């Protein structure tokens, strides 16, 4: 009892100074002039930036008409008159998506393991991170243009593009999940005398599996959407059909294709949600 009283007596004067003082959360930027300068500077820049964007209002007025046509086409989508083309494009897109996802995921797993600093030795880590960086730096469209130039028009270029893009995406996120895993669970497996492969299988895989499955489903989803874009640069799939429809001003066919894409993406979204809920 007495010791506590003495303890409070010690800090008494310091506390006295602080009682009755206002308290506010410390500012992120301490110097007021810098804080205000940054804030005002940002607003001025925003206004200036918006003002530099030129708008040709006459052109917008003309375009409104075409835009309205396009939107109205959604009320009367035409699935039948180009039915054969749409079907072929869809099948091609789905094949591209599935093949690219399977190949991409299969390659991503070893690269993901190599890109995790807590399980890979430094040279392997650097090589794998390098592969990931290259894959992520090159946007799909750019890769597709290059591959179309090499392999010609068609789904092969699309398939290779999507596989390549999948590697960058999945390896990076898988590696990050491995780096965030619980080290002790893996350590316990190591302590039993397990080999490296057994250690990965028992200590690491169970910890990252739900996320790997979730990410794979998400990537399949992305790959399908991308396959629609890649057609625009000649890499096959439904995008090619969509591009043709636009070129011919067949907005009702284009609307039909877009509706199909939306439905499939939503179905994939629903499916991945269901699977992810199951593998927690």
């Amino acid at each position: 009892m007495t010791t506590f009283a003495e303890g409070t007596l010690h800090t008494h004067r310091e506390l006295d100074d602080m009682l009755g003082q206002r308290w506010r959360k410390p500012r992120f930027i301490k110097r007021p002039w810098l804080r205000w300068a940054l804030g005002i500077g940002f607003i001025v820049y925003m206004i200036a930036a918006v003002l530099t964007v030129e708008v040709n209002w006459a052109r917008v007025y003309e375009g409104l008409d075409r835009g309205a046509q396009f939107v109205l086409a959604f009320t009367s989508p035409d699935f039948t008159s180009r039915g054969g083309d749409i079907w072929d494009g869809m099948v091609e897109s789905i094949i591209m998506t599935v093949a690219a996802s399977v190949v991409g995921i299969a390659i991503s797993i070893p690269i993901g393991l190599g890109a995790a600093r807590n399980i890979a030795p430094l040279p392997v880590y650097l090589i794998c991170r390098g592969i990931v960086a290259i894959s992520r730096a090159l946007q799909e469209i750019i890769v597709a243009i290059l591959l179309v130039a090499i392999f010609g028009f068609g789904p092969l270029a699309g398939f290779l593009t999507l596989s390549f893009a999948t590697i960058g995406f999945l390896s990076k996120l898988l590696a990050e999940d491995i780096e965030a895993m619980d080290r002790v669970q893996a350590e316990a497996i190591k302590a039993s005398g397990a080999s490296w492969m057994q250690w990965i299988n028992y200590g690491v895989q169970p910890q990252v599996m739900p996320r790997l499955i979730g990410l794979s489903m998400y990537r399949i989803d992305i790959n399908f959407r991308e396959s629609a874009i890649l057609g625009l640069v000649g890499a096959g799939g439904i995008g090619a059909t969509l591009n043709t429809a636009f070129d011919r001003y067949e907005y009702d066919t284009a609307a039909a294709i877009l509706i199909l894409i939306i439905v499939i993406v939503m179905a994939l979204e629903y499916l991945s949600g269901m699977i992810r809920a199951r593998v927690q």
Partner: protein
Amino acid sequence: MLRLESLTKTYKTGDKALQSVDLEVPEGQVLALIGPSGAGKSTLIRCINRLVEPTSGKVWLGETELTTLNQRALRRARRRMGMIFQEYALVERLTVMENVLSGRLGYVGFWRSLTRRYPQSDVDEAFRLLDRVGLLAMADKRADELSGGQRQRVGICRALIQNPELLLVDEPTASLDPKTSRQIMRLICELCDERGLAAIINIHDVALAQMFVQRVIGLRTGAMEFDGAPEKLTPEVLTAIYGEEDWEATIRKVEEEGEEVAAQ
């Protein structure tokens, strides 16, 4: 059976976790390692099975010197040392049975472990151990469905199925309530007794250590401060290990609890 010769560990940060520790553990002896947080208890245990690489010194397990072993030989040596962890360290998304059988990974090939087709003798032993700790009914539950005490029991089974000669036990009761803590400590000590195992048990709770072990080692800033029977832990000794504090209450508590346990 286990002999540490001037075992030293200096971390990259310059922290001297272990400063030339010499220790000999005879066959079948259960000893407790006490000391304040950061005294190097965990490091000591992990330097023995080289989850942490010692900086210098030697570790003899029987006739084998562990610090110079290559990876393959180290894996074989690790089979002889079972480890029990603080916070259990079960692989949470695996079943109880998979966790227990993972103690056999040092013995079975990759293909068998991948397909979970363990030899029948291993499966039988896993069932026997689970029955011994009272968790047979939980065999196919996922590890994260169990309570703390149950998880630690699974951890004990996983260590014992290795058929080890030595148990390395790192704060087995740190996250358990007082009653479960005692049950777990009692179980570990009973099992060591049944199987003639030596064990090194890191433990925060001095009173609990005194209740169950034959020998206590006190560690302070990586050096051995005390080595003796649990009764020899006087207030002076505890002050030497932990620093100034009123120790009478701790020691008195031990005596009372000791009686209470005897009465049970």
